[in-house]
């Protein structure tokens, strides 16, 4: 299976916890990556459009109290399977790297 692009992977991961609107997705990606990956609206919605077309994500109604301007997005079964496959692929890579004694240096922070 072809590896997912970083944008696709992080959006799917952000939606794994439940439905979110676009801005909440970009904030969640920022949180998951400790501020290292800031996703602009063009990247976010361009990727979401592809995921909608592929049937990995669907647009749904928000909660009752939600902002009317917002559309919410939810992970579909196909998208969850793709995310799980990608995590398995990454996990296998990390195991291989550890077996090769490739250990990341401890963070300075």
């Amino acid at each position, binding site marked *: 299976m072809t590896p997912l692009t970083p944008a696709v992977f992080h959006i799917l991961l952000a939606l794994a916890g439940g439905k979110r609107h*676009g*801005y909440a997705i*970009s904030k969640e990606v920022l949180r998951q990556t400790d501020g290292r990956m800031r996703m*602009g609206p*063009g990247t976010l919605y*361009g990727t979401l*459009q592809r995921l909608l077309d592929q049937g990995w994500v669907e*647009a749904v109604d928000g909660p009752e109290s939600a902002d009317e301007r*917002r559309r919410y997005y939810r992970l579909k079964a196909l998208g969850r399977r793709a995310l799980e496959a990608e995590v398995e692929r990454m996990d296998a890579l990390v195991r291989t790297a550890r077996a090769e004694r490739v250990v990341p240096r401890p963070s300075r922070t």
Partner: protein
Amino acid sequence: MTAPPIVATHLYRALVYLYPPAFRRQFASEMASDFHDATCDAWHDGGWPAVMRLWTHIASDVMRTAATQWLRNGPSMVLALSVAAAAACTFAIMQIARQPVLFTSLSPVDQDTVVLLFLATLVILLAVIVILFTVCFWLLVPRRSSRARRV
């Protein structure tokens, strides 16, 4: 100043016009909302420096992704524009070849006049583009259709 200017959101709405129509119809409203909220958050977090960092990032994002979206959503439009531009260039070259004008043979005063006329034409052309763009923006602001909201 106590908040980032609202005109920035209007400017961003104008920038969204760089995306293909289909993409704008689907996402322009959400993109503008996100821009507004992100600007407010950046303002509260770090003031002008944070806002400027955000806007720089978003401007580069627009330039990068608008081209991608045109290639993805509007290849026929890109092709049509390219063919039209190529046809216009070919026509202009043919006209020049048919009636050659030697710029260097003109007197210095005439050369200045030609340059001034050329610059004036450019300014007028730019003004027309800006006016057309503004009119199109206000008349055709993409609104999320009821069908799109159900998707």
